[in-house]
């Protein structure tokens, strides 16, 4: 999928609170009337985050062309000696909520959902960045530390059905998962030592790499199957107006069995390279340094076979309280099953304006990034249409010298 189409997909799909860390709080006067029989919503999210590399670098990579030394240097100066992380999530979902129709479960409405997920995340070291963007020359007579580091990229689609409690919004859903593509590297230890004048390259490596069928990972491919569950439990705690709204949520908690054409490399090796060994200096034209020879030398031949991996599930807990009038304050903590992701804490303050608009401001810290400041808004158009728009990091739209950029949008239609 091209970058443009990814962007189009992201932009075309509106977002919904289910996919957000901290949903824009419900408000009886702004939200769609719960009395509508059917609600169809289209949701989409793009969220990029990093805790060290400035946005200007991935944006420049996306734009293409030459990446200047200053540009790369600025992000290098911002790297942490310990954990450096980055990740992006692209999700789109179509959701249907039907009228309550279960005699045994009055107050529960059927829900059905189709979603696409494209998730990437990485954890890397300062030296890895230097090696990738500046080369190994400056490590002459030194050792570049390349671990611990990890990378995961997974694309999958889900289709599922469940129940949603009409009054509280709590829901439970079971999804069938179609695995499209997967690649993950987990490097527990790795280093590269460059000898004086480049006469020796010595690497140590302990890690593994798993990937789905290398024949292709396009939208037309099904390289794995699995199941997943999603649930959210909303409740209130405390008396009356000042009751605290609590929510616990789990999304995409499941697994995919990637098929037998999947590949893996597991390495625990130390390799010293002093140059390609040539039999005769006068017969260099006969030296064949092809891909096969290189793979054999480095021991990078794949093994094939099925494997099972957990999805990049998301677990969260959130709480909000009405402060009086139209103000509300919330807080949430989220964790995702992704490399480099640490618990992300989000604070949110919101205010209803009039009867159809709600504005919110967020501040979050953690995840794949650092401190982010965002805005969110939802507005009802007429009685049947509710639109939401939010970004987790407003500065990302105005400067490249910040970290994180995202947009969520969604629209719901009731009938």
């Amino acid at each position, binding site marked *: 999928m091209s970058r*443009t189409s990814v962007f189009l997909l992201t*932009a075309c799909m509106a977002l919904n609170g289910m996919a957000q860390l901290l949903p824009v709080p419900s408000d009886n006067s702004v939200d769609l009337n719960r009395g509508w029989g059917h609600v169809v919503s289209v949701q989409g999210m793009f969220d990029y985050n990093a805790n060290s590399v400035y946005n200007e670098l991935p944006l420049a990579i996306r734009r293409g062309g030459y990446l200047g030394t200053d540009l790369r240097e600025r992000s290098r100066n911002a790297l942490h000696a310990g954990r450096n992380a980055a990740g992006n999530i692209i999700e789109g979902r179509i959701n249907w909520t039907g009228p309550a129709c279960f005699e045994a479960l009055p107050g529960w409405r059927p829900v059905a959902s189709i979603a696409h997920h494209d998730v990437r995340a990485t954890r890397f070291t300062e030296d890895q960045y230097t090696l990738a963007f500046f080369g*190994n020359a400056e490590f002459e007579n030194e050792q570049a530390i390349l671990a611990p580091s990890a990378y995961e990229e997974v694309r999958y689609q889900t289709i599922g059905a469940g129940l949603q409690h009409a009054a509280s919004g709590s829901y439970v859903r079971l999804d069938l998962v179609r695995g499209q593509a997967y690649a993950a590297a987990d490097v527990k230890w790795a280093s590269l030592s460059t000898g004086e004048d480049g*006469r020796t390259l010595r690497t140590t490596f302990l890690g593994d790499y798993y990937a789905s069928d290398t024949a292709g990972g396009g939208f037309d491919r099904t390289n794995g199957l699995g199941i997943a569950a999603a649930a959210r439990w909303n409740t209130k705690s405390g008396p009356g107006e000042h009751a605290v709204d609590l929510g616990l949520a789990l999304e995409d908690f499941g697994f995919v069995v990637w098929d037998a054409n999947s590949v893996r490399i597991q390495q625990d090796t130390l390799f010293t390279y002093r140059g390609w060994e040539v039999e005769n200096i006068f017969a260099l034209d006969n030296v064949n340094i092809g891909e096969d020879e290189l793979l054999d030398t480095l021991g990078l031949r794949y093994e094939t076979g099925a494997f099972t991996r957990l999805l990049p599930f998301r677990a969260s807990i959130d709480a909000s309280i009405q402060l009086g009038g139209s103000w509300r304050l919330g807080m949430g903590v989220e964790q995702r099953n992704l490399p480099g992701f640490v618990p992300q804490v989000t604070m949110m303050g919101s205010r209803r304006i009039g009867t159809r608009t709600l504005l919110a401001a967020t501040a979050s810290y953690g995840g794949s990034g650092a401190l982010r400041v965002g805005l969110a808004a939802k507005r009802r158009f007429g009685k049947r249409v509710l639109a939401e728009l939010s970004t987790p990091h407003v500065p990302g739209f105005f400067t490249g010298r910040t970290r994180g950029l995202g947009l969520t949008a969604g629209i719901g239609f009731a009938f």
Partner: protein
Amino acid sequence: MEYDRPLIRVASLGLLFLSTLVGCRKDPEPARWDVDVLAPLLITRFTIADIIPDSLQDVASDGSITLVYSETLFAVDMDTVLEIPDTSFVYAYALPLPGNDAFNLPAGFPVISENNLIRFDLPDLALSKLVVREGILDLRMKNKMGSVVNGSFDLPGAIFADGSSGLEVSVGPGTATDPAFSSTQRDLAQASFDLRGPFFNEVNTLASSVSAQLDPNGSGATVTNQDSVVITVQYRDLVTQYAKGYFGSRTVTVGPETNGIGLFDNVVSGTLDLDRVRLKIKVENGIGMDLRIRLNSLQAVNTRTGVTVDLEHAILDGPINLNRALDLGNGFQSSVYENDLDNDDSNVDLFLENMPDQLQYSLDMDLNPLGDISNGNDFLYHDSRLQALLELEVPLDLIATDLVLENIVKPDLPGNEEEQTIQDGTLSLFATNGFPFSGRIVLDIVDRDRNFLSAVPVQGDITAGILGADGFVNASTASELHAALTAEQIDLLYGEGRFRVRIVFNTSDQSQHLRLLDRYAMDLQITVGARYYVNGDE
């Protein structure tokens, strides 16, 4: 108005938002950036075997190396002495009837019945026996008579591989205007011919019997003077397995001819002073006849320098008499002539120090110089040949002065001409030299036709190993050479350019010959420090 067309308003906002994200942007080019790479390229150990294959080395117990090189100077194959041309014989029958007369021939009427002697046209040769290795006997019949004709061809003096000595063919009825044709073939491999004729007193002669008769089971034929039967016999593509007889007395001139010699292919210029050279000229006569050879000239030609050195030795003054080979019945034993040449009795050292890439020679060869002294018992087998071998023995005890070895290398650079991933860089060579000679590297970039394009300055030389009092290297030396490549030179290498690497060798003591030992070696490592463009520089 509060609820007027809400969907349109939302859609408009959405489109406005989309336009800010994607606009009318074209597909982006890939991101590019440069990294400084420092890495070893290749490692190798240079030994004498890299320029002289092990198969050409004779290593003594003390480790000294002698170059042993063998080259065929000339080889005269059997076809120079004996070549049997394709030969055809025609047998025809027609009734000598006047005008429109017709004549009835009964069934079984013999239209041809002849005993003939086939004489092969073999000038200068008088063969009494011939065994064929390969060859075909074609028998073709043309019939204008109105009856089937059965023909047979018999060679009483021949024995085919299956033990028979003839073949038969039948041709259908034909007419004067529409003759019938038929043919048959016999593989003559391993056929033996007695060429002495029916009374064993002739040469090159083969008795034959040809007959043709109307089909005895037919109804005969009415023939006119237009009707005929023609039998054509052809021997073709004959290759001799064995021949015996008298091969004649004549002189064959060979050359001037030129043979390539690959011993100094990598040497471009410079001088080589060899202490000792021994050249054995070995002539083998596999033919059963006496030969006398006069070697008119033997020259070492160096086409690179244009210098030609004539070999000077008594062998060029007088003839070489070669006895006939010995016939063992199922093979032969060659007679051998050998003559050793060295520095003392010839200029063979200068001959070789010319570092020839060609050997040029001319000679005259007298066959049976004393006439038919074998009384018709000359012989040859298919594998019989006269050949002269040069066997060279050169102890690697030498003085090399600016001896230049050249190699052309087209580097396999990452990327391509349009998307070059290397912009500039430095090649470094690290050498640990255990040879008693120093090396200076001249690095140029040349085009496909070896035309000079650019010079790459090389800083540093390879120093010679340290000589002990015994004239042998007793310690290696380490050297470091660097060659900086500019962006323009990298451009050339991405195009048609290639490296021309010339190594200029000088033995460390120019006043005495230094002996090369098989333990001598030079460890080489080439590293590169380069600016590498990820995804190319364009």
